[in-house]
């Protein structure tokens, strides 16, 4: 059984909570005591039906105000796959939250109200999904029961969205007509949509293949931690712990250690007390080298013919998270893989209007929830890939030097 991480996006009344509630309920991830608790809470609020949104709104303030403030993570499984949902709120701080949820997702589920068709929010959500390089989008055209399950309406929305997907360069879009409220095409194919020949939503989630050829990417091993036991049994042991951020590495491979460009050979790869021949992307391992070389946290092991770029001037798409706006020419701490350096903001090339998908080159003020193309200069060179090539070595965050808050996330161009 493998793991699929997906994010959900939708505007306020498009039935996102209902859909998530249904996925959880039908996969038996909602328990009786939880149902009882939200049933009681719904009644206390004077609502007629059980309000499944109360299940997903984990914070008191959210329940009081009836809004979702923060990303929440939910879990369910079918016999075929295990799922982690990053459930992101539709309105307040949508960009900050959706970017956060999308950063770890393999797939985005975007909801559209069949009565209203593609909205500004749909475009916004799709832009963020493409910016974060989510490879698969399922466009759920919801509330089909309210439009008499009209194939014409479904086809029109699909046609409109194909244009958007092309513009945003989103390659894999799946379209599905559903009614989250009644369960049409959620778990089982609905008899109300005989014209729809593809899978139900659950079947799609279970079968979409997301990890294509990642082992063919260039090898990237950011060193996270040095393991030196200094015990009698492992007297001379010096291991480099980390999680493989790209490709694969094997015992016997020649590697280059960045930034010092020292060459060495891999003599061992272990996971706990087990030796393995090859480590693949995503594996947390410990590596030993042939030579007694100087390697510390923040260094990266790569292969000679697959070098990343060495950069001190970095151009990236930046999403700003904090209420305090970006300080032009301000200094921030950059965290990139296991590396930490300082940077200064050099320039804003443009600010993205994510409703119209146009670039604004005049307005250089970057505040909360803005997305912009920004140039920074770092205090020392970083070894990077573009975010399109590698999400780990192509991403970074900016941290405030005084408050230590995470101010922004950047995707290197």
């Amino acid at each position, binding site marked *: 059984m493998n793991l699929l991480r997906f994010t959900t996006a939708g505007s306020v009344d498009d039935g996102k909570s209902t859909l998530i509630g249904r996925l959880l309920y039908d996969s038996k991830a909602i328990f009786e005591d939880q149902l009882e608790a939200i049933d009681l809470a719904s009644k206390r609020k004077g609502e007629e039906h059980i309000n499944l949104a109360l299940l997903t709104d984990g914070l008191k303030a959210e329940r009081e105000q009836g809004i979702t403030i923060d990303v929440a993570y939910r879990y369910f499984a079918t016999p075929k796959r295990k799922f982690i949902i990053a459930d992101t709120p539709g309105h307040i701080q949508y960009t900050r939250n959706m970017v956060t949820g999308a950063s770890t997702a393999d797939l985005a589920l975007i909801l559209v109200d069949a009565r209203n068709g593609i909205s500004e929010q749909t475009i916004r959500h799709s832009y963020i999904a493409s910016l974060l390089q989510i490879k698969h989008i399922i466009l759920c055209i919801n509330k089909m029961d309210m439009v008499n399950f009209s194939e014409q309406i479904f086809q029109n929305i699909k046609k409109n969205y194909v244009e958007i997907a092309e513009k945003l360069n989103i390659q894999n879009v799946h379209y599905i007509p559903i009614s989250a409220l009644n369960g049409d095409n959620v778990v089982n194919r609905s008899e109300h949509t005989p014209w729809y020949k593809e899978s139900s939503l659950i079947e799609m989630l279970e079968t979409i293949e997301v990890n294509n050829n990642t082992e063919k990417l260039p090898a990237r091993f950011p060193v996270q931690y040095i393991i030196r036991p200094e015990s009698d049994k492992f007297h001379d042991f010096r291991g480099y712990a980390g999680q493989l951020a790209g490709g694969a590495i094997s015992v016997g491979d020649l590697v280059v250690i960045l930034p010092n460009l020292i060459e060495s050979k891999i003599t061992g790869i272990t996971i706990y007390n087990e030796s393995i021949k090859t480590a693949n992307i995503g594996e*947390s391992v410990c590596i030993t080298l042939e030579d007694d070389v100087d390697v510390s946290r923040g260094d990266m092991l790569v292969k000679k013919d697959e070098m990343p770029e060495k950069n001190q001037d970095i151009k990236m798409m930046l999403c700003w998270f904090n209420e305090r706006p970006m300080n032009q020419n301000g200094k921030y701490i950059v965290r990139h893989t296991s590396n930490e350096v300082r940077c200064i903001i050099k320039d804003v090339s443009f600010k993205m209007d994510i409703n119209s998908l146009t670039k604004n080159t005049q307005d250089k003020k970057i505040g909360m929830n803005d997305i912009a193309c920004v140039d920074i200069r770092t205090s020392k060179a970083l070894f990077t890939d573009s975010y399109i090539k590698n*999400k780990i070595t192509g991403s970074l965050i900016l941290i405030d030097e005084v408050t230590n808050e995470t101010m922004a996330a950047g995707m290197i161009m």
Partner: protein
Amino acid sequence: MTSHLKALENESIFVFREIAAQFQNPAILFSGGKDSIVLVHLALKAFYPTKIPFPLLHIDTGHNFQEALDFRDDLVKEHGLRLIVGSVQETIDSGKVVEETGYNASRNKLQTVTLLDAIEKNKIDAAVGGGRRDEEKARAKERFFSHRDEFGQWNPKNQRPELWNIFNGRKNMGEHFRVFPISNWTELDVWQYIYEEKIALPSLYYTHIREAFCRNGVWLAYAPFMNLKPNEKVEVKQVRCRTVGDISCTGLTLSKANNLEDIIKEIAATRITERGSRWDDKRSESAMEDRKVEGYF
């Protein structure tokens, strides 16, 4: 190991190594329950062949199951770990908190004071816990690296965004972090992992005979400090624990499961959440959030 457990394990080991790299003085919050036992197992894997480079911190309410304490001591000995114990009894004796009275009296809430004292006294800058997001709705909003202010408090409305696998553990003097390496695991994942990795657990998790009494539909273990209501009577039952906490708030499951396969089957079929029998969560709709804001686990 199935690929989803492997993925979760890789993520948790990554988090443990970040803890070691980003903090000066971390400690694993150890309760004797299965989640903290899995944490210790993951930490062993993350730092092998080095010993786990931080101590265990146990907040002892004085109302613990003896089996959990014995298990704790054996584990500490086996892996050469350092154990710090924060005693709720001492906090009460020092006059810092007043013991609850009445039938539902529990030391669960008092633990927060002892925990924050222990963190301050031992200068712990990262308290690593076995909290999982699937446990409870307030925990579903929790970060891996969760910032606590100088009063040890959580501000759920203003959490740092957490993207990709970049964790920001920077803080100012007096502040600390709670870190949750198994955030993304579900109860069933934990049990399947225990099964696949053959991790030893306290005998409490397996079926056994115990004196128990029923309160509002929940079976609780009888102990001399538990105040029985007039209509409650102690019976001998065949039970096991689904979660292990303080005796006063740990509900028992009537069960004959005496091995991991049967426990996994039981968990997979159950229609009640893990914390559904935890008295500490039943106090109000936001019981967990309220305690977490104050600095609870």
